[in-house]
């Protein structure tokens, strides 16, 4: 076992397999969280039928999607119709290879990690474009055209914001970016006397557009284009597009967390006094609180099966909380915890946007992209460069 783990190829392969197997489940629960949060913002309950409070809804959805008939339009370009969702999912999952999940959990720490993520996201855009074209439907085609124009436009400010962050960190490696933030004792977002906030905000806006999320979800604008580029897709192929979209959200959020919010570092990593409260008390208390919330459900649920599920969830969260109190388990998981915590905050931000902002009109989208974001991002790059030149000598 020890010998096997010492082989340089084995741990990354195991981690890759785990990511590919577990991510669909995580994506399913992000969808559930999204539906619940949106429902809450609109004073509804959201999914409540499958399992207590709808906690088993993602499993039911996944089963439904896999059993659904897979319709291929007769006039479509079958070869490309098949290729497009595969391309999207493949590239979105490939980008996970360079994400620094924690100080010890990462598949690869390559010198071009950030370039690799940008490259994969640009190939992923082709999946959307080809998928919409191959269906031979006008709605799909319109969705694809919008996707193509939007991707090309918003890749520029996203790139400039990324370049500013790379300039600040001085490396293209994802772990290197985090190491530089630890060394400088400040999150990327607040570096250069707070001037790095400009690229941070731009990155979040352009990242939302790059992942086709509301208010930039014009490629699939359901009120105008039925479902945009995936109008003709159904069943498992549609599920692949869905998976790719959520994978892209997680990848962009991870990139943002890594570049600007310290990755797997805890807040204030240089203050030794906060080591115990933030690394042990906070996660343990957080999971205990979640367990307490779940335990309420044990008494409120009417069905015996639902009570059992809630009791199991209570036990699970208590166990995880207790694990953080153990020094050995804590050391193993704490990086992963902070990364997941920041990631969850970013994903929540994306959901919040969707529930708050109305969709842009197409000309407004282009206006914001070209006349505001790109000049501001260039200005932010030059400003940060000048400040860095003088401040660091």
């Amino acid at each position, binding site marked *: 076992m020890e010998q096997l783990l010492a082989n340089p190829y084995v741990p990354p392969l195991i981690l890759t397999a785990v990511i590919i197997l577990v991510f669909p489940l995580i994506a399913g629960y992000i969808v559930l969280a999204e539906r619940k949060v949106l429902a809450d913002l609109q004073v509804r309950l959201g999914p409540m039928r499958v399992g207590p409070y709808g906690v088993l809804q993602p499993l039911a959805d996944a089963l439904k999607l896999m059993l659904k008939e897979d319709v291929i339009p007769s006039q479509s370009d079958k070869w490309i119709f098949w290729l497009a969702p595969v391309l999207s999912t493949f590239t979105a999952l490939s980008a996970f290879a360079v994400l620094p999940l924690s100080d010890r959990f990462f598949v690869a720490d390559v010198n071009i990690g950030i370039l690799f993520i940008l490259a994969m996201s640009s190939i992923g855009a082709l999946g959307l474009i080809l998928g919409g074209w191959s269906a031979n439907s006008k709605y799909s085609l319109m969705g694809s*055209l919008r996707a193509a124009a939007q991707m090309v436009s918003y890749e520029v400010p996203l790139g400039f914001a990324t370049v500013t962050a790379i300039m600040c960190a001085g490396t293209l490696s994802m772990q290197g970016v985090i190491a530089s933030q630890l060394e400088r004792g400040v999150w990327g977002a607040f570096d250069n006397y707070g001037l790095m906030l400009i690229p941070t905000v731009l990155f979040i806006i352009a990242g939302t557009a790059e992942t086709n999320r509301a208010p930039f979800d014009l490629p699939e604008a359901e009120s105008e284009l039925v479902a945009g580029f995936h109008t003709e897709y159904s069943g498992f192929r549609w599920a692949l597009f869905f998976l790719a979209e959520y994978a892209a959200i997680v990848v962009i959020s991870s990139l943002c967390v890594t570049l600007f919010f310290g990755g797997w570092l805890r807040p204030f990593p240089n203050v030794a006094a906060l080591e115990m409260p933030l690394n042990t008390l906070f996660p343990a208390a957080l999971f205990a609180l979640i367990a307490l919330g779940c335990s309420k459900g044990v008494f409120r649920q009417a069905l015996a099966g639902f009570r059992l599920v809630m009791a199991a969830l209570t036990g699970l969260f208590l166990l995880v909380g207790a694990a953080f109190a153990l020094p050995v388990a804590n050391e193993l998981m704490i990086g992963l915890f902070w990364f997941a915590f920041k990631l969850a905050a970013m994903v929540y931000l994306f959901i919040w946007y969707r529930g708050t902002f109305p969709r842009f009109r197409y000309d407004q989208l282009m206006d914001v992209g070209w006349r505001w974001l790109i000049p501001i991002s260039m200005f932010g790059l030059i400003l940060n460069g000048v400040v860095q030149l003088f401040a660091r000598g």
Partner: protein
Amino acid sequence: MSLDSVLFYVLAALVLGSAIMTITRRNVVHAAVWLISALVGVAGLFLSRGAEFLAGVQVIVYIGGIMVLFLFVIMLVPVHDESTQRRFSNQKWPATVAAVALFLWVAFIAVNGVGMLDHPGMAEPLGPGSLSENSEAVGLVLFSQYLLPFELASILLLVAIIGAIVMSKTRNRETES
């Protein structure tokens, strides 16, 4: 055969095969997809030679930028009409001459060895040991030794961008009046 050369031949076969498919497909979108596959193969070749930065930029610029715009235009063309028309114009002979000339040129270099391309003042080729600083090395060479060509290329692109804007604007004014 080492892993390196196996990788090279696989990628070379991918690039050449995709390139042949690109020029023989009747459906333009299929041709574009094969072209993307060829470009990915070239990025793989860069990667196998240790030029990580070039590989990343190859994918971002050619696939993320240029091919997306290609597809954007191609998607507006009715593919079925296109595939029944004769593909090649009357420039068959000039094209053949150009292709043969290019082939002879590449073959000449291949026979004489890459060394004939050396010139005084050329940057030192990067050894396998310097992999970890690939991007930095590219940046340093580009902004010191090759600054003039780099800036000239930037100005050329700037002129092209301004030209494109001017052309699209004048057409708008004519249609409005």
